[in-house]
């Protein structure tokens, strides 16, 4: 089998605590091994004067599924004049804010990403999500089915039946080949099916008379009861409205004091996603200001929470989320084309284009809030970099976000370019922060941290022997400081060399192989629960529009290379 | 020869659906889609008995179909030929640069021609494309 040795690179690996000193990374049969175990015939990759990290892990992006495809279908102008003729191994692709599947795989690989999680999968459409995952080359992928507005979950949690909820979650993860429990605007999206919403954690859901707080608490307990690899992954109520940081803090307080219970090395019980959209102070868009300090102070103090930032990258992009009411609110703000799909019994979704213009003070403040969150974070292993692709910006902008985080000069040049520079400085604390993240901290925020939070710390996110051989070499010499911050962006945009499961997939920014991607999913075994099975059969007879047999075969025959994480929750 | 002008639309019917599944080279397809449904008042204006063959022509072509009484009327001034090769001999192919031909809303002239035959589906298209050779 193919053997490689990456010699003399500056290794940054928070899993082993290596902070940039020279070390060799040996690869054999798709795994990382000690240097000694590799024969002389191993192919040498010279990484002298370069940076070596593990393959990056994307914890939250909308890259595969029905609403992503609805975004592709209804934005032909997103592809005008931005496609380049295909060459070499690459299949054709198009799309700026919403790339087509082949292009998604290539763009992630080029930046050194080897694992990515689809952030919201409506269970009824999971077959569609898996077909798109099948057509996204190179990167391993998993998908989070949404549970926060599911009729089963709401009916069980109304009576605090955590065990029944856990049994239903296990059944649904198996039926849809899902990975984790995702909650989007709990209760609010079910209210949206009547055109309403839940703006705080205590607003009751129409007809189901359960509050978002009860849904959140119940799903955390069910998740820990099962001991799933990843914690409950939440997009709280009241997204994107000034003054919503109080709702965010109320949501986080629900997780206070709950201990994680799992055998995957996960230490958090709640993951708060795209925190930027949930850290707004002020009462309207006029006095809108940053709540990043308050939110991050709480998170720094509570160890059982991980977050991802959701950085705004100041591009024309497309917002898409299962938070139906927010998208309707957004289309009333900017009058751009609005797409919406309400899904029976389960969830909803909305898609609206949005232009984050540097000339609008709100967008500039959003940009600052995203960066403040990462810069206030004390423990980079609990704060990850995302743009909630494509909501705050396309994932292809990660190198630019890393540039802003690693260079105060880059931040200043951007602040000076804002039309309302004064407002940005007065309404946020970005001007006063001079912290510049190091490569080691960036490695924690994009590799080791997300892998640990997802329960994948034994497989990816690090370079310890025995882990998958997902290795990236960047043209960055840590010993030679960069004169121009744009060099950081350029280096992180086109990796010098990327290995995925021991196969070289990128060389000098060019795709050289389509790799052999896996679909990660969680197979949770629970005590058999006839009552839940009866409820499921009854709901399919009365309220679903597909038969139970066709629903249960949604994820099966369509995952060419599945990788199941086994969980045994039988008590 | 008496002729009237009506506005032609085309679309699905259950019989047309069944016929396309049982074979478009068979007479059942001609029975289902080689017809023009006209309002009784239009038939009276034309002076035609029900179930007689008529020649329907537009600026884009002409075809022989069997005239029957409207099954989903009344719709005076409006004629209906189920979607298929007969309708598509005469519908307006102008797409107004949207890619979609104007299947509905083609002004047509209808005249009685009892002794001309309604061709079978496949035969009709072959004759239009290759003339009488095949």
């Amino acid at each position, binding site marked *: 089998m193919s053997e490689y040795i990456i010699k003399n690179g500056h290794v940054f690996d928070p899993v082993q605590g290596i902070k940039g000193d020279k070390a060799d990374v040996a690869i054999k049969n798709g795994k990382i091994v000690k240097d000694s175990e590799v024969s002389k015939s191993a192919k040498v990759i010279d990484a002298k004067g370069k940076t070596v990290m593990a393959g990056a892990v994307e914890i939250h992006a909308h890259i595969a599924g029905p609403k992503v495809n609805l975004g592709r279908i209804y934005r032909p102008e997103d592809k005008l004049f931005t496609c380049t003729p295909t060459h070499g191994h690459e299949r054709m692709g198009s799309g700026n804010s919403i790339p087509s599947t082949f292009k998604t795989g290539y763009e992630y690989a080029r930046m050194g990403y080897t694992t990515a999680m689809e952030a919201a999968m409506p269970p009824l459409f999971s077959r569609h999500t898996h077909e798109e995952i099948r057509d996204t080359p190179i990167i391993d992928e998993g998908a989070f089915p949404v549970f926060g507005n599911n009729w089963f979950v709401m009916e069980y949690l109304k009576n605090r039946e955590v065990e029944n909820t856990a049994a239903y979650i296990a059944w649904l993860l198996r039926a849809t080949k899902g990975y984790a429990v995702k909650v989007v605007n709990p209760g609010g999206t079910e209210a949206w099916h009547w055109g309403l919403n839940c703006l705080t954690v205590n607003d009751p859901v129409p007809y189901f008379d359960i509050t978002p707080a009860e849904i959140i608490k119940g799903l955390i307990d069910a998740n820990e009861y099962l001991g799933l690899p990843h914690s409950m992954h939440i997009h709280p109520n009241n997204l994107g409205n000034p003054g919503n940081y109080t709702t965010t803090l109320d949501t986080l307080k629900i997780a206070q004091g709950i201990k994680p219970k799992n055998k995957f090395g996960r230490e958090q019980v709640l993951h708060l996603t795209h925190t930027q959209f949930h850290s707004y102070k002020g009462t309207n868009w006029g006095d809108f200001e940053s709540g990043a300090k308050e939110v991050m102070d709480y998170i720094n103090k509570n160890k059982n929470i991980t977050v991802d930032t959701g950085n705004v990258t100041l591009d024309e992009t497309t917002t898409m989320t299962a938070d139906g009411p927010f998208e309707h609110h957004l289309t009333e703000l900017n009058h751009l084309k609005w797409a919406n799909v309400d899904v029976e019994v389960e969830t909803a979704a909305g898609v609206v284009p949005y232009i984050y213009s540097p000339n609008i003070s709100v967008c500039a403040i959003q940009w600052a809030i995203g960066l403040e969150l990462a810069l206030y974070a004390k423990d980079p292993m609990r704060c990850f970099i995302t743009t909630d692709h494509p909501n705050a910006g396309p994932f292809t902008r990660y190198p630019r976000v890393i540039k802003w985080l690693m260079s105060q000069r880059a931040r200043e040049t951007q602040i000076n370019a804002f039309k309302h520079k004064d407002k940005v400085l007065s309404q946020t604390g970005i001007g006063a922060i001079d912290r510049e993240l190091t490569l080691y901290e960036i490695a924690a925020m994009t590799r080791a941290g997300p892998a640990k939070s997802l329960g994948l710390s034994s497989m990816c996110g690090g370079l310890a022997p025995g882990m998958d051989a997902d290795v990236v070499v960047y043209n960055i010499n840590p010993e030679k400081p960069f004169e121009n911050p744009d060099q950081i962006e350029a280096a992180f945009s086109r990796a010098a060399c990327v290995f995925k499961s021991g196969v070289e997939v990128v060389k000098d920014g060019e795709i050289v192989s389509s790799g052999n991607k896996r679909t990660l999913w969680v197979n949770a075994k629970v005590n058999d629960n006839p009552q839940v099975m009866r409820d499921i059969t009854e709901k399919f007879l009365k*309220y679903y529009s597909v038969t139970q047999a066709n629903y249960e075969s949604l994820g099966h025959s369509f995952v060419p290379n599945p990788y199941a994480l086994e969980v045994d929750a039988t008590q | 020869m008496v002729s009237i002008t009506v506005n032609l639309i085309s679309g699905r019917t259950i019989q047309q659906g069944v016929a396309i599944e049982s074979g478009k080279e068979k007479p059942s397809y001609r029975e289902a889609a080689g017809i023009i449904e006209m309002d009784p008042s239009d038939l009276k204006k034309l002076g035609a008995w029900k179930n007689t063959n008529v020649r329907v022509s537009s600026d884009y072509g002409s075809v022989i179909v069997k005239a029957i009484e409207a099954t989903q009327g009344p719709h005076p001034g409006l004629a209906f030929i189920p979607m298929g090769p007969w309708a598509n001999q005469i519908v307006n192919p102008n797409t107004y640069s*949207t*890619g979609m031909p104007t*299947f*509905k809303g083609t002004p047509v002239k209808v005249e009685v021609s009892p002794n001309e035959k309604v061709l079978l589906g496949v035969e009709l298209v072959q004759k239009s494309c290759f003339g009488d050779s095949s």
Partner: protein
Amino acid sequence: MSKKITDVICPFCGTLCDDIEVLVSDDGKKILEVYNACVIGTEKFMHSGAKDRITRPRMRQADGSWKEVSYDEAADYAAQVLAKAKKPLMYGWSSTNCEAQSMGNEIAEVARACVDNTAAVCHGTTLIAVQDIGLPSCTLGEIKNRADRVIFWGCNPAHAHPRHMSRYSIFPRGFFTVKGQMSRKLVVVDPRVTDTARMADVHLQVAQGQDYELLCALRVALKKEWLPDTVAGVPKEKIYEVAEILKSGRFGIIFFGMGVTQSLGKNHNIDEAIALTKDLNEYTKYSIMPMRGHYNVTGSGEVLAWQFGFPYSVDLTRGFPRYNPGDSSSIDLLNRGEIDAAFVIGSDPGAHFPISAVKHLAHVPLVCVDPHITPTSGVSKLHVPVAFNGVETGGSCYRMDNVPIDGRKVVDAPEGMLSDEEFLVMVRDRLKKIKGVA
């Protein structure tokens, strides 16, 4: 004895009924009985066992007769045609599964072809409208559980989607609609008194070709503005009345079909209907859904969109996807004489395109992949029969509300016949060899 296969999807229309049960002989060769399907679905299943079925590819000879050829020879010919053509059109894809569509996209990419599906003559203008103004929609189960206002605008489900009303839109008893059709008000807008219109509480007999004006009038009526006495043949009192009926519901749904997509105004009719739906969302909860015709045209749109970025009329000739219906759509390409070869699968343009377009199709090298004898195969150079998709092969299909359901294989195909996916793999491998692509 015989065995019953349940939860079978019916491969005909966009309703994609998935509760069909088929009684099959023990040796799995013959379909004996079909339950729960409408008359069209039943005919599709039963016809697969017809004796006079074509089971081998055949090539058109100079004198017009057919000569039987092997699948290998057919694949060679198809690959040659696609390799030589400067601008081949690969059309259809709507009556085959997503795996075959994905294989077809790969072929189109290597051949640098134009790919288009039957949306070009069905809901293509809907997709243009969605691209201009979005689409507030929902799944069919939402309508079953919640809808109390149902509008059929320019569509006739009684004929085109026979079980739609009993499975989703009018009769089912959902979570919040326990009284079934008694808890729903039905409005039908159609220039004819269709069989669907006869069941309606309100039938607006709109003047043909003026749907755009009537839709605009409804939006004006919602804002309680001035209206002329009659609009599109409908008196203004009735328009104000219908506006009130629409507004007073808790959950409304507008279904629309060929009546608006194929008439004058084309995409603007749907654009205005979607704008009306957005306006109604200011008062109550409204969604709008196209009545997709073929059972997997939605699937073809989804596969094309996630692989190339556009739902239909995709032009790959420059090495990257381009899209502009009116320039890259099949009818215009044919009428302007812009293509020099054609590969048709899973559709019948010979019967359903205007004859001016079919004439162009007949005078270029045309490969037709279809289990039936159709006008397209009648004018093609090569006719390749394949197994019935949805009956003799399974595969992924997408319903009119984009919900994916797995087709099931019910009975074996006749001896020695390939599925469309297997034939496409043969064509792809030969084409790659000719073009020297890895």
